[in-house]
Structures are given as structure tokens and as C-alpha cells.
């Protein structure tokens, strides 16, 4: 539940958001190949960071395991296309199902513990699935990965080719937008409020009569589901999937993007992803050990603007207290 920003600022942010949205609607016609691919990728990773924020920013549980669902989504698409020879819709459906079921299973065990134990258990699960993916090279391609062809997408009478970059972009954009809207609705709903109440005071939520473990599991499943959607989009865009996608450091990226952009919001993670990846790309070009600078920026952010860039824009800056301990 974001606190309303002082009137004028909120207006300005809404207008800026509208401009960005319009830009995204027209992006393939405004950008060259390099930046079009860049924006496509930002949408995908932004969705991944947003999915992470459901479990972290809203529900207050730090998971380093979301890469498992990203990888699961990517592999579900790849493997159904390769082995089942299925169409894109079926591959997407498989990705949804696999990531949701996997999130239900891992979540079932993970939400039984909290705090540091939860962090550790998510890392461990993530390592297990990473190792398994490496191990079963015959199926997954392991380190080398799995390349596949994407059949045409049938929408009514139209057969759209993913090899057409404009089609690819709009498909990604539409799915990300739809995912965002669904998450937005859920976060406004009683569920979203329960998630936040668990973040704020899980003990009190339980004493009121909420089955805290059940709602933690729901949040975890939602988070896993949309991480899986992001993974599926990645696979459809790059026609490729490999074990590295499941590594917990991929989760770590999502964590950083969400925190830098503004945890506890849905827009913040997209903002954080866009800015951090641009920044990393830019300085990586000039400076070999750019990761040191990335680290410094993150430390600075956490100290001066714990509510992220969006928090600063909303005028809530570093002066904490408005959103309580997280």
C-alpha cells in the first residue's frame, strides 16, 4: 500500500509513467535493432524483478530462489517445443503450469520457516535445481544450453512469426503488461493487503485470524508463476535456455533491481531493472571491473534511499518510518 505522494509529484509521476507507456507502445518503430532488443530484455527482466517483489517487497520474505522458476519457465517452453513439437500457446501453458507447481512444492517447505532460514532454504532449493539442470545434460543441454525453433503463433486467422522482431516485441510487451495488470489487481485486493500485513507484523496477522502460512504460500506461488512467465518470454525471444538461468545469482540480480527501483511497489522493479542494466552496460563498456562500481551504487542506494528510486521520486526519500521495518 503505497502512501500517496504529495499531490503535484504524484501527478508528475503519473504523467511520466504515461509517457513511458506510450513510448513502449511505439518502441519497435522508434528504436534501432540494438535498443529494441535492449528494451525487450528490460521488459522481461523487469517482470522477473516485479515477480520477486511480490514475495519480498509486499510479503516481506527475501527469496534467492526465484531463478528456479525463471529457468523452469524457459525450459518448459524449450522442451515442449523441441520434444512435444507443440505450438507457442501450449508451450506458454506448460511454462505457467510448471512454474506454478514447482513454486507450490518449494513454497510448501520454504514458508514453514522464516527470516534467515527462509533465505537459506530458497538458496538451497535453487542450487539443487541448478545442479540437476547441469547434470541432465542430455535433456537440458547443461552449460551449453538448449536451442530451439519457435513455430508461428496462431492468433485467429493470423500466423505470426517470432522471427519478426516487431512481433516478438509486441508479444513480450503484451504479456508483460497483462502480467502487470493482474498483479496490480491482486495487490489492491484483500490478498495484497494480507501480504502487506504479514510483512508488517506476521504475529499480529495470525492473531487476527489469518492463516499466515497459507498466504505466504500464495504469495510465493504468484511470485514463482510470474518469474516463470518471464522465463518463458526469455526463451521465446532468444530461442535458447541454459542452466545458468537457474543459478541463484540470477535471483540476486532480481533482488538488487527491485530494491534499487523501490521494493513494495510493482513499478519500482521495472524502473530499477532499466536503470541498473543501463548503468551496468554503460560503465561495463569503459571499465573492466565495473562490478565494484555497481556494488558501490547499491550500498549508497540502501543507505541514502532505502525505499529505492521510486521512493525518492515520490518524495519519501531516505527519511524512513512511513513504511515501517522491512
Amino acid at each position, binding site marked *: 500500500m503505497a502512501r500517496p505522494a504529495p499531490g503535484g509529484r504524484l501527478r508528475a509521476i503519473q504523467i511520466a509513467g504515461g509517457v513511458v507507456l506510450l513510448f513502449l507502445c511505439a518502441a519497435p518503430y522508434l528504436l534501432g535493432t540494438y535498443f529494441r532488443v535492449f528494451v525487450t530484455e528490460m521488459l522481461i527482466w523487469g517482470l522477473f524483478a516485479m515477480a520477486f517483489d511480490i514475495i519480498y517487497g509486499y510479503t516481506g520474505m527475501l527469496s534467492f530462489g526465484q531463478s528456479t522458476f525463471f529457468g523452469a519457465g524457459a525450459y518448459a517452453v524449450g522442451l515442449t517445443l523441441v520434444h512435444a513439437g507443440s505450438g507457442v500457446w501450449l508451450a506458454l501453458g506448460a511454462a505457467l503450469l510448471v512454474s506454478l507447481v514447482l513454486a507450490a512444492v518449494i513454497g510448501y517447505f520454504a514458508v514453514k520457516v522464516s527470516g534467515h532460514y527462509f533465505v537459506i532454504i530458497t538458496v538451497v532449493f535453487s542450487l539443487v535445481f541448478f545442479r540437476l539442470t547441469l547434470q541432465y545434460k542430455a535433456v537440458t543441454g547443461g552449460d551449453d544450453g538448449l536451442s530451439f525453433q519457435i513455430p508461428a503463433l496462431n492468433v485467429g486467422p493470423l500466423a505470426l512469426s517470432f522471427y519478426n522482431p516487431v512481433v516478438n516485441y509486441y508479444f513480450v510487451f503484451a504479456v508483460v503488461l497483462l502480467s502487470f495488470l493482474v498483479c496490480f489487481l491482486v495487490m489492491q*485486493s484483500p490478498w495484497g493487503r494480507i501480504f502487506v*500485513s504479514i510483512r508488517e507484523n506476521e504475529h499480529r496477522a495470525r492473531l487476527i485470524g489469518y492463516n499466515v502460512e497459507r498466504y505466504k504460500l500464495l504469495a510465493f506461488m504468484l511470485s514463482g508463476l510470474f518469474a516463470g512467465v518471464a522465463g518463458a518470454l526469455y526463451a521465446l525471444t532468444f530461442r535458447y535456455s541454459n542452466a545458468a538461468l537457474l543459478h541463484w545469482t540470477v535471483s540476486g540480480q532480481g533482488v538488487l533491481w527491485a530494491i534499487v527501483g523501490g521494493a513494495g511497489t510493482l513499478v519500482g522493479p521495472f524502473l530499477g531493472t532499466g536503470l541498473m542494466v543501463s548503468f551496468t552496460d554503460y560503465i561495463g563498456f569503459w571499465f573492466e571491473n565495473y562490478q565494484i562500481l555497481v556494488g558501490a551504487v547499491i550500498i549508497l542506494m540502501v543507505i541514502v534511499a532505502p525505499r529505492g528510486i521510486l521512493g525518492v521520486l515520490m518524495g519519501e526519500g531516505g527519511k524512513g518510518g512511513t513504511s515501517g521495518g522491512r
Partner: protein
Amino acid sequence: MAADLLLETRGLSKAFGGLMAVDRVDFALAREELRAVIGPNGAGKTTFFNLISGLLRPTAGHILFRGEDITGLPSHRVARTGIARTLQMTSIFAGMTVRENIWMAAQRRRRFYNPLMPASRMADVRQRVDEVLGLLRLVDIADEVAANLSHGHQRLIEIGIAISTNPQLLLLDEPTSGLSAEESAEVAALVKHLRRLCTIILVEHKMDVVMGIADRVTVFAEGRVFAEGSPEEISNHRGVQEIYLGARDASGR
């Protein structure tokens, strides 16, 4: 008699290692009663509350609420049977506004929620929140973030959360702790008002608060029910004076 009982415990016990924090307590509470539970520090009052509200599992004994055995139910299910409670150390949603705090409890009365419908559309919940805000005179600060408010207000918010679920039994654990004499008197007046809505058990340290409003008083000492009676009987009870005042002397007050 049994038909009028709201809460009953039989042989309720909780041991922490070798220590019997609550020791074979038989307790009976009639509907619409306002019962005070007093006793020196470490007498087992809060442990007794924790057993009833499901935060702790008893080592022995039973808890009956409305004639049903609720022993060993997890705390969220106990809450759904109609038992609400406040904690000795204020426990609220510090990062939320006062209204959002109350909302969380008022919203709980539904069993299922539509995850695609905005919470704000639940008109009955909104109405309930307004009622409670009015009752506790929190309307003026309804949109303040709870963490920024005074301790007294935070205690009120916690009581508001507890009653918003429409409980049949309200467990108040030292609602006046840390409050000034003036604020304590206000809380006492509020409790007096709340008893029209539900049955109440009040754990309290301040004797004057208890004596003014309780129907009956139960005195705990060393995990057991030491004495029980009307406020007059208890204040004239020699044994109670000894353990209670004795313990107060020992704790240096």
C-alpha cells in the same frame, strides 16, 4: 449453569522445563462477564492467555470455548472461533495507517476473498472500520501512519484491531501498561464500554483500574488460581494482600 459458560479450562497446565508456569488451572467464565486476572509478576497470567489464544500448546488439560474443545488449535483458528486478544507489548502494523490497521481486522470476518477485486470495494468492511474508528475516537488521526503516533494511541489501535473482528471473547493483556494515570482512566472507561459488546478477560497490574470495573477477580500466584471473588472480597482477602503486596515490596515498588 454450564449453558451460560463461555470459556472453561480444566486442569490446564503448561510446563517450561521443570517450571510449572500454569499449574492445573480450572477456570470458568460466564457470558457477558468482565473478569480481571491479577497476580504478581511471573504468576502465569500471560502464559494462561497464551494457552487460550493458541500461541502455546498446553502440556495438559483442556480449553472449552462455547462448549467446544479448542485445545491445541493454532492461533489463527482460535481467533476465528471468536477470541481476540491484545498483547502486553503493543503489536500492531506499524507501517500502516490507523485505518489500514483496523481494516486488516475488519476484513478478516470474510472467509474467502476475490483476488481480482479491489479491497476498497468491500462496503461492509469499510463501514465496520468507520464504526470502530468512531468508537475509539481515532477518526482525526485515521490516515496517520501508526509508527508515528504516541504509545497511548498505539495501544488504542491494538484494542481497535482486536474488537474489529467482532469477537465474543476479548483478552486484554495489561492494556494500560506504559500509560499515564489519565490515559489509564480513559482505557478503563473504554473497557467498561466494550463490555457491552463482548465478554472480557483483563489482565492488569494496576489494582485501581481492576477494582473499578471488574465483575469478578481471579488472583494467580505461582501458576495457580490462588483466590477468586468479587473485587471487594479480593481486596479484603488477607492472603491476597500478602502475596500481592509482598511481591510488590520485593520488586521494589
